[in-house]
């Protein structure tokens, strides 16, 4: 069944800033009329610069924020005006992984408590023994040991905490997992651990994943489809491979080009200027002030979203002209033979060590 897991139409959120007694607040359109469809079982990524509204969008999808406008359907149910029982059901089906594993766990609760809480809330039929067993199962699922249950979050490393957060999110048996930069706070090596874990869980549990990130490499590694946001709007979206090999929107292109290193766009800083304030974004196309291709038409109205032949949707007046002139991204640089050999060796050693470890562990447990 390939029905949509999430369907957002014209979703908007504006915050009131600075207002007060006798002073009209200013409006900040954090999310501006976003359309979005996420299919069941796929991994959908949202990428964009800091402050472009990624987190706000994610929060709208599970009603942590009230939308200012637009609608969201999750698994076919409109979530805009639900409350009570229905909201609780939503919270059971949709779960959230937070960016910062350090601040998103209550430091005063044990792991058993933290992971047990969603069980208490959503599966009240479990008695405390059953709940503990369930917590143990969840911890094992994310690669933590049941012995860790009675420890406090601060006794874990960042990667382990992120696992606790994930176990907590899994506890209610969700169908959809939204990760708001679930790996951004982590070190590359730990990041790799968590990226792998999420991929495994998705495959094992058949989850739908929505992942927010600003690291394009991570996005590519994880997702099936990507949406690129700029100042509250989705400027380009489509299958990951299509976007990475043939970006069409000037902003997407600039993003890819700006990635440093041999694999990156290799063009260094192709954009000038700073991101405009979301409080008063430029008229028409928000990107036009930094866009090398900006023309008069861009100032006029919001560009329509159009679909390209590679299945991507682009919100740009001039994408066809630009695409004509532009190339695909350059081919990947090859690794040296020496490096390639070592990486191979390393993988082998890792796999071998993993196996012995596992055997040992199983031997210990009756």
């Amino acid at each position, binding site marked *: 069944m390939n029905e949509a897991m999430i369907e957002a139409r014209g979703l908007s959120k504006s915050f009131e800033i600075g207002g*007060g*007694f*006798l*002073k009209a607040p200013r409006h900040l359109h954090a999310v501006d009329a976003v359309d979005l469809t996420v299919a069941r079982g796929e991994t959908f990524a949202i990428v964009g610069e800091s402050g472009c509204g990624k987190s706000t969008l994610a929060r709208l999808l599970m009603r942590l924020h009230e939308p200012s406008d637009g609608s969201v359907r999750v698994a076919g149910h409109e979530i805009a005006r639900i409350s009570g029982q229905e909201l609780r059901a939503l919270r059971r089906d949709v779960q959230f992984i937070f960016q910062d594993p350090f601040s998103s766990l209550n430091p005063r609760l044990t792991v058993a408590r933290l992971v047990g809480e969603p069980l208490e809330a959503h599966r009240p039929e479990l008695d405390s023994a059953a709940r503990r067993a369930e917590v143990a199962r969840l911890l094992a699922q994310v690669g933590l040991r049941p012995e860790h249950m009675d420890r406090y979050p601060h006794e874990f490393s960042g990667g382990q905490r992120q696992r606790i957060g994930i176990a907590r999110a899994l506890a209610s048996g969700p169908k959809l997992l939204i990760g708001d930069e679930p790996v951004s706070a982590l070190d590359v090596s730990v990041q790799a651990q968590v990226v792998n874990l999420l991929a495994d869980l998705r495959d094992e549990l058949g989850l739908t994943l929505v992942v927010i990130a600003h690291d394009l490499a991570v996005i590519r590694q994880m997702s099936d489809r990507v949406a690129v946001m700029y100042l509250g709007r989705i400027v380009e979206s489509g299958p990951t491979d299509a976007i990475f090999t043939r970006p069409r929107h000037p902003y997407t292109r600039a993003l890819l080009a700006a990635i440093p290193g041999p694999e990156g766009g290799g063009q260094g800083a192709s954009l000038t200027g700073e991101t405009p304030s979301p409080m008063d974004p430029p008229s028409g196309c928000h990107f036009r002030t930094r866009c090398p291709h900006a023309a008069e038409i861009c100032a006029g109205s919001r560009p329509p979203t159009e679909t390209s032949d590679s299945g991507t949707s682009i919100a740009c007046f001039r994408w066809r002209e630009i695409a004509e002139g532009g190339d695909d991204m350059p081919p990947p640089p090859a690794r040296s033979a020496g490096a390639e050999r070592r990486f191979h060796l390393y993988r082998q050693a890792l796999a071998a060590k993993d196996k012995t470890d596992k055997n040992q562990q199983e031997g210990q447990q009756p």
Partner: protein
Amino acid sequence: MLSYIARRLLVSIPTLILVSIFVFALQQLLPGDPVLALAGEDRDPETLDRLRELYHLNDPIWMQYLRWIGGVLQGDFGQSIRTGLPVADMIASKLPVTIQLAVMSMIFAALIGIPAGIISAVKKGTITDYVANIVALSGLSLPNFWLGIMLILLVSVRWQLLPASGYVPLTEDPLQSIRTMLMPAFVLGTALAASLMRHTRSSMLGVLRQDYIRTARAKGLGERTVVMHHAFRNALTPVVTLAALLFGELIAGAVLTEQIFTIPGFGKMVVDAVFNRDYAVVQGVVLVTAMGFILMNLVADAAYVMLNPRLKAG
């Protein structure tokens, strides 16, 4: 900035109304009949009844409240039942006294507290720090009235250096005025000095941890410049804010200090009035004090904004 102040003033209106209600509730709360309390040694029942009638004490409390607040809005705070003088005049005559005391105490507090705070922050963890801390806290820990009486006995009676009590208006004889106020201001100031010192210290410690201090050092600036120019400037903001708020504490502290040193200020007036059930005076003074407190809050906020370029521009 102006609109900000205007807005803040408007916001403080409900607070003032609440204060006025609380003060009035106080009148309801306090046992003791004002007329009886004031009757002293002339307690003719008829006279008492007549006075109650005269001061509208038999009216329902809300009527008394409305009458009073109506008067206040026209600048009429009513009459002291005890002295028969208009409360507004009494307040006007005490205000300079209390302000002088407050300002002088504040000067004492700042002179002691701020340098001590800076030094102990810079020398954190050393003996200097501990000594500065304990000395500063001593001020806070010694009851005002105790220190006050001890000082009177030593400085005025034993050494005859300063007048034991009383008050000379600044306009009449500035030198003598300052001399009479020296001891009470010191007593009050020492208590505040501790607060100021502690806040200066923690504010300085916070600022000294900031990245821009490391930047300043990385520029090769001398330690003195780093501490005074970069750290203190920024540490000052919360301290100034606090100092303004301390004026509120000052008034409270002044209650006993004024009592001891017989300074005819707000503190003394209000305590006497409470004990004499001279409600018009209590209400007037507390209302004016509350206004002062709110004003000080405003000053504190304004100072915060002024010292904070981030807010000044926005």
